[in-house]
């Protein structure tokens, strides 16, 4: 459901916190297995009468058929638009009257749901989730309405410098792979999606063998088990087969420019990175924190923003997907300065490639990454998301207790070696949207008909 957009209270900015692991001392994770064999990770917290759940099915928008691209995205937008005997308004009114929050999301690698409920409304709230996952109606009115909204969102992204710069980057780095396409699809593919397609996605993809569940809050294992069974017990055992090929981002040293009449050029840049299960993950995480974390202490911020005033925002981080890993950054610089900002980013990259971090920088980054993690434990919803992430990445239920030690064991030699391996200025692709000056060697790209087909759901640096 889309209420009126608030004109002025929109959150300003992107939250790019590091999400890596939990300190054992702060939370105790328990694995709960229900009668019907549904497994969930639980963190009990009885301080307020609230329960949050995060659940994900492995397999996301990347599994959409090419001619139905946008199917997963459109499906999740319709799951709360009527289910069982409840039409759209009736369903949403019930959610509201329970003061519950239920949302759905389609990412490149997962379809996920988040739920937050009051302790005394758990059963009816979970039952509404069950209805949405098993008996969505896909009535003609909401299907038409949501389709119109998605088409508008696609059109808006094509006119947004940030979304377009990101779209161009993913498209250039992953030609012929679903990661190169927008998870929203194109006008053409979205118009081809039928209610039967929506139903088949639900039938094929929501299954027990790809389900991951994290629960946090005022609930005991004994209370949770029957809820797991009633909510997920009726799902099929197995999801339909579907695979996404492993892929590596293209290595091209280029600046691509798409013209848009805006005062600030939006720059997206990046190169191949590491997957979450790469042995060099932690060294890379530390290197990127030193080089490009969103905070004011990183090297790119120091060089681009603090010393030269070339940007308000500049950052870079690891973005791991299920079948690839990338290093992705962004900056915004007035048109006259964009070329200089790109130069400074390249030079900063080169220095990190050549020399790696200093011992002091590495020590500081370790303190930051280990010390800041507990800050992400401040709400039931955030902890539930982390429980799902750890399971998705198969890090093990004891990961939280080991995380600090793993990070602290990265040596300066590791960090330097990985900087050399990964941070190559010669592999950096910059995509720029705006009217940048002095970028004479840039490749001019003209999105077809002024419009680029599709926009990636991957977006700017993710929370990893």
């Amino acid at each position, binding site marked *: 459901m889309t*209420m*009126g957009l*608030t*004109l*002025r*209270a929109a*959150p*300003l*900015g*992107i*939250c790019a916190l590091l999400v890596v692991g939990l300190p054992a001392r702060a*939370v105790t994770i328990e694995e709960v297995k229900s009668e019907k064999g549904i497994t969930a990770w639980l963190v009990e*917290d009885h*301080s*307020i009468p609230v329960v*949050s759940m995060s659940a994900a099915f492995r397999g996301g928008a990347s599994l959409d058929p090419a001619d139905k691209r946008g199917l997963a995205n459109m499906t999740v937008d319709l799951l709360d638009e009527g289910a069982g005997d409840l039409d*759209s*308004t009736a*369903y*949403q009114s019930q959610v509201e*009257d329970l*003061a519950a*929050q239920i949302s759905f999301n389609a990412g490149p690698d997962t379809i996920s749901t988040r739920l*937050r409920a*009051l302790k005394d409304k758990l059963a009816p709230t979970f039952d509404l989730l069950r209805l949405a996952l098993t008996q969505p109606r896909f009535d003609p009115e909401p299907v038409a*309405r949501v389709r*119109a909204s998605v088409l*508008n969102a696609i*059109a808006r992204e094509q*006119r947004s410098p940030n979304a377009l710069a990101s779209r161009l980057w993913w498209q250039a780095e992953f030609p012929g792979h679903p990661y190169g396409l927008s998870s929203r699809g194109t006008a053409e593919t979205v118009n081809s999606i039928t209610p039967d397609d929506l139903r088949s996605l639900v039938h094929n993809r929501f299954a027990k063998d790809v389900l991951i569940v994290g629960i946090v809050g005022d609930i005991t294992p004994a209370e949770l088990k029957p809820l797991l069974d009633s909510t997920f017990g009726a799902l099929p055992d197995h999801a339909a087969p579907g695979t996404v090929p492993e892929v590596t981002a293209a290595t091209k040293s280029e600046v691509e420019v798409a013209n*848009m*009449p*805006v*005062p*600030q050029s939006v720059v997206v840049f990046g190169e191949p990175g590491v997957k979450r299960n790469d042995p060099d993950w932690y060294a890379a995480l530390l290197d990127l924190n030193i080089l490009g974390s*969103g*905070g*004011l*202490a990183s090297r790119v911020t120091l060089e681009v*923003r603090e*010393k030269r*005033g*070339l*940007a*308000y*925002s500049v*950052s870079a981080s690891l973005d791991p997907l299920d079948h690839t890993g990338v290093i992705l950054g962004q900056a915004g610089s*007035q048109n006259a300065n964009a070329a200089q900002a790109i130069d400074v980013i390249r030079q900063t990259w080169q220095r990190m490639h050549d020399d790696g971090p200093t011992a002091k920088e590495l020590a*500081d980054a370790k303190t930051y*990454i*280990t*010390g800041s*993690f*507990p*800050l992400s*434990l*401040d*709400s*039931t*919803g955030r902890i539930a998301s982390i429980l799902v992430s750890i399971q998705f990445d198969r890090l093990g239920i004891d990961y939280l207790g080991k995380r600090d030690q793993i990070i602290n064991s990265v040596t300066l030699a590791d960090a330097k070696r990985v900087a050399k391996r990964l941070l190559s200025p010669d592999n950096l692709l910059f995509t720029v949207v705006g009217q940048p000056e002095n970028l004479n060697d840039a490749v001019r790209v003209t999105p077809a008909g002024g419009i680029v087909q599709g926009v990636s759901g991957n977006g700017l640096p993710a929370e990893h």
Partner: protein
Amino acid sequence: MITPISRGGSRAILLVLFFVFAIALPAHAKLFDAETFTLANGLQVVVIPNHRAPIVTQMVWYKTGAADEVTGKSGAAHFLEHLMFRGTKAVPPGGFSRIVAQNGGEENAFTTHDYTAYYQSVAADRLELVMKLEADRMANLVITDAVVKPEREVIIEERRMRIGNSPSALFDEQLDTALYLHHPYRIPTIGWESEMHKLTAQDEQAFYKRWYAPNNAILVIAGDTTAEKVKALAEKYFGPVPSHPVPVRQRVEEPAKVAAARLSMKNPRVTEIQWSRQWLAPSYNRGDTSEAYPLQVLAEVLGGSAASPLYKGLVIDRGLALSAGAYYDPNQFDLTNFGFNATLKHGVTVPDFEAALDDIVKNALEGGITAEQVERAKQRMIAAAIYARDSLSGPARIVGTALSLGRTLDDVQNWPDKIAAVTPDQVRAAAKAVIDDETAVTGLLMPGPTS
């Protein structure tokens, strides 16, 4: 992702130092178990214990913002927020952020028309460190031309990003000048670009000296600590910061509004018509403040739910809009606004849409707001208030906002009771008082070539 409490609107544009979240929170919740005391130098301290995780958030709120700028110096308050990270006698430029990061902390700051706030979240055992740092920059900031020059480019770049690159933000700036005829809320928090270019170290020093003082600030500490511990640390670090007289926040009075305004803007980057209509409205502080609670219920009744007249009527039943809603945020030092907004469905004309909307609103004003709708809205709002306690910084923000606007902890704690006490008659009366065709500001942001 659904943000549960972002539906209410706020006319204050929050400006943050760098890319991190900043959400205005209209929803309050009771029972934060907050304690408050005041140091000898006038600094009010609030402690909100929360022992879920071994972490704390420190927030310092200054009771001043962009509406307190000298004429012609727009952007000065927000610029100062940036300069607060650029060094003191004891900490070199950039040192503040480096020290916080080295200690595993997160930090940021934000500026509105009415207040400016700074915060850090750290492990509980680092609280003393961030209190020391924050107390230091309350009085010892060093503002030099060397830091002003590049940082001024940064805030202008921030303006390009937030405003220049966004047709809707550009248009909102213009709408504010129509809504507020005289009051400084008509001036953007980030500043007009022509004036930002001219801001000097001297201007910033003057704003700092005039408004930044312990007796014009509130220290909020939330998290894994106690009032006793905080009191000792506050006395140690903030206690010695000297107080000095601070002017009364007295902004020019807004004259009576007698004309309706209609603004339109075309931009090729707009895809569908974005329609809005707003009115000046009482806040918690100004105007008929007794309407502040009924107006919150009114916004929820009219546009806050799937079955609400605006959403169901315009989006679902009549199929005229892709989205439609109502907004109201009473957290403003002076007058605030109440409004409706919608994105029109492709092909729907403005007259057709407005006729339908007028019909729905007229119906609501003439008895269409039922007791059952009001009761349901109130129940929903009160039940959801518990979620405000489901984070560390949420309660700190709610309390800090309220106190920096001159309200009290009791006002915050009593929010659910105040909402519960609102009657359908009060909602209808508030609607009639605020929704007035003669003074509406209507905005139309439309697709099309720039003129």
